[in-house]
């Protein structure tokens, strides 16, 4: 055979393989409003940057007539490419081939590209669209999942791992995304659950649709399994591209610097946004926008536990991670969900060399039987753990309320914040004046001829004496009380000064966080 005929044989083989499940299956995929696996990779990566591997890998299963079945690429596409010039390893399950079911070779292709990502120290992106385990392959398919989970865990904190749910992802399959750093979902397309509606109906008699049980909205707002929610696959890819621009390739690098830009202070004017009365709400995201470059704040988990706000932004061209109490939602109180949300983000930033900027304005922890029984003690402890453990530069700005345990938890001086700034409106105290006065002066109030008048007077006294930043400043727990308008200047300076921060904790295998 001549080289030419060998080459044309290769071309033919490639042409067959890239057909995936064939035109009928592709039509079905399109009818569901979904792109094909290959289209997804092409739309996400920089133009002409995708290089595919293992196109000819196929299953070797024999049972249940599997030996007669030819599954191109074994239902998954793997390769490398670039996003905004950042190198990435990527895989996309191909639902048109045997429903994207995961067999031994399918898993082997995934673990192979994962091993690549770890060796090359580049981010890993997994696009999930699969009916689940390939039942015909039995325990081999379970083995495949297990090998993936192990690698997800080993890679955690070394390279960024991104999961994109663009179809069903059910049963054991959900645990790979759950082990990764960021999960993206798309309305009407993503479905995630451990046990589906049918099993729930038979076992518990509860009727629920797939969408209500584990659709994109539910995962983004109620369960918190997802970090980003999009209306379309294209919007989802744009979000991924944006995220990749903010994070470093691996844990030995810093995120790429960008040209410095001033915030849009006309639109986000602290004087106008910020009410000094601690009982009045405002959107803390506008304060973040008043501080960061170009007022461009990329929020993570926008819909879940909205009483705390987390996300990436740049200050003087450098990526920082913002953590901020949100007085607009549940008064910004900490609870089970918001503690989980913040703690995980803090650990992400610390692992990937992203400095943390914390904005504090919270009344404390959310009261309630449901909270106590859901374990607000161990969940709340996660924030303390994450901040104490974090070794990146930690800058805290106390805007208004910093009461009780909430004050300690929100990256206080005591958890080794590098810089704690307070606005003159800050109230650093064990609790709000009303609550404190009622306890401290209970006897005097109760025994007074006019209890209401005495209460009012005592509240005012307490407010004057303790509801300010100066008591904490007198003890050195606050490094500087600052003019709110100068916050950005102070944060930039703090970031510059802490650029060589190098903290090494005590030697240990690993801590035992209150998971």
């Amino acid at each position, binding site marked *: 055979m001549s080289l030419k005929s060998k080459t044309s044989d290769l071309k033919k083989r490639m042409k067959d393989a890239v057909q995936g499940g064939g035109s009928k299956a592709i039509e079905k995929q399109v009818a569901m409003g979904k792109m094909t696996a290959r289209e997804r990779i092409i739309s996400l990566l920089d133009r002409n940057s995708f290089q595919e591997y293992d196109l000819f890998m196929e299953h070797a299963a024999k049972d249940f007539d599997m030996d007669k079945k030819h599954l191109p690429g074994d239902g998954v596409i793997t390769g490398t490419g670039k996003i905004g010039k950042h190198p990435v390893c990527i895989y996309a399950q191909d639902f048109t081939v045997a429903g994207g079911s995961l067999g031994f070779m399918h898993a082997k292709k995934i673990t192979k590209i994962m091993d690549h990502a770890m060796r090359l120290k580049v981010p890993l992106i997994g696009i999930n669209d699969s009916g689940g385990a390939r039942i015909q392959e039995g325990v081999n398919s379970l083995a495949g999942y297990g090998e993936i989970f192990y690698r997800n865990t080993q890679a955690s904190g070394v390279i960024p791992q991104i999961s994109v749910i663009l179809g069903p992802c059910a049963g054991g399959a959900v645990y790979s995304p759950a082990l990764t750093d960021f999960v993206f979902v798309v309305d009407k397309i993503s479905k995630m659950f451990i046990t589906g509606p049918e099993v729930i109906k*038979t*076992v*518990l*008699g*509860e009727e629920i649709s797939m969408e209500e049980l584990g659709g994109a*909205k539910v995962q*983004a*707002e*109620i369960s918190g399994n997802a970090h980003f*929610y999009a209306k379309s696959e294209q919007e989802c890819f744009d979000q991924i591209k944006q995220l990749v621009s903010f994070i470093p390739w691996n844990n030995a690098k810093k995120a790429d610097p960008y040209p410095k830009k001033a915030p849009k202070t006309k639109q986000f004017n602290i004087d106008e946004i910020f009410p000094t009365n*601690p*009982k*009045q*709400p405002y*959107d803390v995201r506008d304060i973040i926008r008043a501080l960061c470059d170009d007022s461009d704040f990329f929020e993570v988990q926008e*819909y879940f*536990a*909205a*009483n705390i706000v987390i996300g990436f932004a740049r200050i003087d061209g450098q990526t920082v991670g913002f953590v901020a109490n949100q*007085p*607009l*939602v*549940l*008064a*910004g*109180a900490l609870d089970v*969900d918001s503690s989980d949300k913040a703690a995980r983000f803090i650990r992400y930033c610390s692992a990937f060399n992203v400095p943390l900027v914390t904005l504090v304005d919270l*009344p*404390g922890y*959310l*009261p*309630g*039987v*449901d909270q106590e*029984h859901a374990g607000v003690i161990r969940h709340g402890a996660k924030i303390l753990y994450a901040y104490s453990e974090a070794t990146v530069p930690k800058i805290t700005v106390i805007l208004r309320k910093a*009461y*009780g345990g909430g004050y300690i938890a929100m990256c206080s001086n005591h958890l080794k914040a590098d810089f704690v700034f307070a606005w003159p409106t800050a109230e650093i105290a064990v*609790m*709000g*004046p*009303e*609550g404190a006065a*009622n306890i401290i002066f209970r006897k005097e109030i109760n025994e007074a001829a006019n209890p209401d008048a005495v209460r009012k007077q005592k509240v005012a006294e307490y407010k004057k004496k303790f509801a300010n930043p100066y008591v904490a400043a007198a003890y050195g727990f606050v490094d500087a009380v600052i003019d709110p308008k100068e916050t950005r200047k102070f944060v930039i300076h703090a970031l510059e000064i802490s650029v060589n921060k190098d903290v090494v904790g005590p030697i240990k295998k690993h801590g035992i966080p209150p998971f």
Partner: protein
Amino acid sequence: MEEKSENLKYSWLNINNVKYKTTLTEKFKRRKPYVKKDPKEVLSFIPGVIISINIKEKKKVKKGDILMILEAMKMKNQIISSYDGTIKKILVKKGENVKKNQVLIEFA
């Protein structure tokens, strides 16, 4: 999950005796108020069928006695008495389908 900049519905949330003006989340609104369990009631922990009843009303039972068998998911689940006492009322019949958390037995 539309952009919620306008038409926010504000509520007052009491934390440590201070009332804050704020909005509530869907999840917060959905939370169920705590209901104290009546120790005299025995509830079904899973939906299924009562396939046998081993007790009679007004009779005494001992802690650990098997009161009923509730079949669910092909498993015969024993409903066991958590203490010594007298049965006041049996609220289900043999062969009856029961829901989750349905009251099966009342103790005196």
